[in-house]
C-alpha cells in the first residue's frame, strides 16, 4: 500500500462493509463515514460492532472509529441501533459520548431518555452542549430543574444550549434573546453555534436575528432553509396553513441568493 494519497476503493455498500471489517484503520474510519453518508441501512449491525472496537485508539486514549460509527448510526436513524449506542455510553472517551448523544437525538427513540438523564445527573463532566440539545430535541421537559443552572455555565455554548432547551419548552422571548446575543459575539465559532441553535428553533424572531447576523451569507442561507424545512415537516399543509411565515422565509432565501 502506498502512502502518497489515501486510497479510496470504497464505491459500494459491500466494499465499505468489507473495509470496515478490515485492518487498515484509516480505511475503516473512511468506511464508517461512507456508510453513514450514503445511509446504507444494512450496515447498522457492523456499525454497532464498531462501537466496541479496540483496534483503533489514539495516544490520548480516544476511539476515532467508535466516534465515526456513532455518527454514521445517527445518519442511518435506525432505532434498532439504540441499545448498542446506549451501551457504548459507558466509555470514558468524551468525544465518543458526544457523538453517541447526538446520534440518539437524531434517532429520536424515547428509550434513550433515561440514560441521558443519568448522564445529566452524574457527578462527572459530560459533553453538556450535546446533552442539553438532545434533551431539548427529545422534549424531555422534566429535566428543566437540572438545566436551569446551565444558563450560567462557564461555556457560552452550553449556555446557548440551555437557552434553546428553555425556549423550546416555554416559548419565552428572554431565552431566544440569550441566543441572539451570541450572534454578535467576537468569536466566530460562537456566532456559528448560535446560528445553528436558532436554525433549529424555527421561529420568525430567530429568522430576523439570522438575517441581521454578522456571519457568512452561506450560513444564513442554510439556517433559514432549516427553519422552513422544520415548518414544512411539522405541518405538511404549512404552505396554506401558515402562508405568511412560508412566504417570509422564501422571500428571505430569494434575497440571500443574489448576495455572495
Amino acid at each position: 500500500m502506498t502512502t502518497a494519497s489515501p486510497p479510496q476503493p470504497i464505491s459500494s455498500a459491500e466494499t465499505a462493509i468489507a473495509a470496515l471489517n478490515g485492518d487498515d484503520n484509516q480505511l475503516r474510519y473512511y468506511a464508517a463515514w461512507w456508510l453513514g453518508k450514503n445511509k446504507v441501512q444494512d450496515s447498522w449491525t457492523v456499525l454497532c460492532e464498531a462501537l466496541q472496537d479496540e483496534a483503533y485508539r489514539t495516544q490520548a486514549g480516544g476511539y476515532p472509529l467508535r466516534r465515526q460509527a456513532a455518527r454514521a448510526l445517527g445518519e442511518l436513524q435506525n432505532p434498532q441501533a439504540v441499545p448498542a449506542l446506549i451501551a457504548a455510553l459507558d466509555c470514558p472517551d468524551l468525544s465518543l459520548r458526544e457523538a453517541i448523544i447526538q446520534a440518539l437525538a437524531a434517532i429520536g427513540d424515547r428509550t434513550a431518555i433515561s440514560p441521558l438523564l443519568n448522564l445529566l445527573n452524574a457527578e462527572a463532566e459530560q459533553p453538556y452542549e450535546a446533552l442539553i440539545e438532545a434533551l431539548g430535541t427529545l422534549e424531555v421537559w422534566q429535566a428543566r430543574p437540572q438545566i436551569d443552572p446551565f444558563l450560567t455555565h462557564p461555556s457560552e455554548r452550553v449556555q446557548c444550549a440551555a437557552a434553546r432547551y428553555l425556549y423550546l419548552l416555554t416559548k419565552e422571548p428572554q431565552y431566544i434573546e440569550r441566543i441572539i446575543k451570541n450572534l454578535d459575539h467576537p468569536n466566530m465559532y460562537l456566532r456559528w453555534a448560535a446560528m445553528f441553535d436558532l436554525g433549529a428553533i424555527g421561529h420568525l424572531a430567530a429568522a430576523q436575528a439570522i438575517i441581521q447576523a454578522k456571519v457568512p451569507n452561506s450560513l444564513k442561507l442554510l439556517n433559514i432553509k432549516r427553519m422552513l424545512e422544520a415548518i414544512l415537516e411539522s405541518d405538511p399543509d404549512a404552505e396554506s396553513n401558515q402562508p405568511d411565515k412560508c412566504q417570509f422565509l422564501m422571500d428571505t432565501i430569494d434575497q440571500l441568493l443574489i448576495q455572495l
Partner: protein
Amino acid sequence: MTNNNGQKLQQAVTPNEAVEAIHELVDHPQRASDDVITALIEGLSHHHPAVPAAAVDGLVELGSASVNPLIAAFEASGDQAVQAHIIQALARIGDPKALSLLEDVIGTSVANHCQGNVRRVAARGLGRIGSLAKDTAIIRQAIDKLTWALLTPEDWALRYAAIASLQDIAQPEVMPPLQQALTQESDRVVQARLNRAIAQLV
C-alpha cells in the same frame, strides 16, 4: 469634492475613506466616465469587505455603462473574490450584454470556474436579464439556461435560484419546466418554492 474621478478612492487610506469616496463618485452619475468605473472596479479588490460591497453598489448604480468594463475585468482577473463581486454587480444590473458570461459561470455539469454561491448569483442575474429584456431571443436564451439549472444540478440553492428567476421572467414558456421540475424535485423547500412560483404564474 470637485475633480474627483477616482483619485480620491485610489488615495484612500482607511476603509471608511474608501467607502466615502465611492459614495461621492456615484452620487454624481454624470461623471460615469471610464475613470470612475475603473476606480470602482479597482475597489473590488480592497481587503476590507465594506469597500468591495460599496463598489458593487456603485457599479450597479451606474448601470449599463459598467457592463463592458466589468466583463473585461472578469476576463483579466485571476482573483476569485474579485470575480465573484463582478458577477454580483452584473447580475444586479441585468444587462443582456452579460448574458453569455453569466451562462458560462453557471456552468454545465460542474461549475466551470466559480464556487456555488457565485453560480447562484449568476442564475439570479439571468432572471433579471430575462425580465428586463425586450428581445425574445435573449429571453429565450435565459429561460433555456435556467431550465437546465432547474432540472440538473445537485445544488438545491442553484435549483431554487433558477425557480425565483423563472418566476421573475414570467413568460408562458417558463411554466413547462417548472411543472416538469415538480415531478422530479426531492427537496422539500425547493418543492415549496416551485409551488409558489407556479401559483403566482397561473
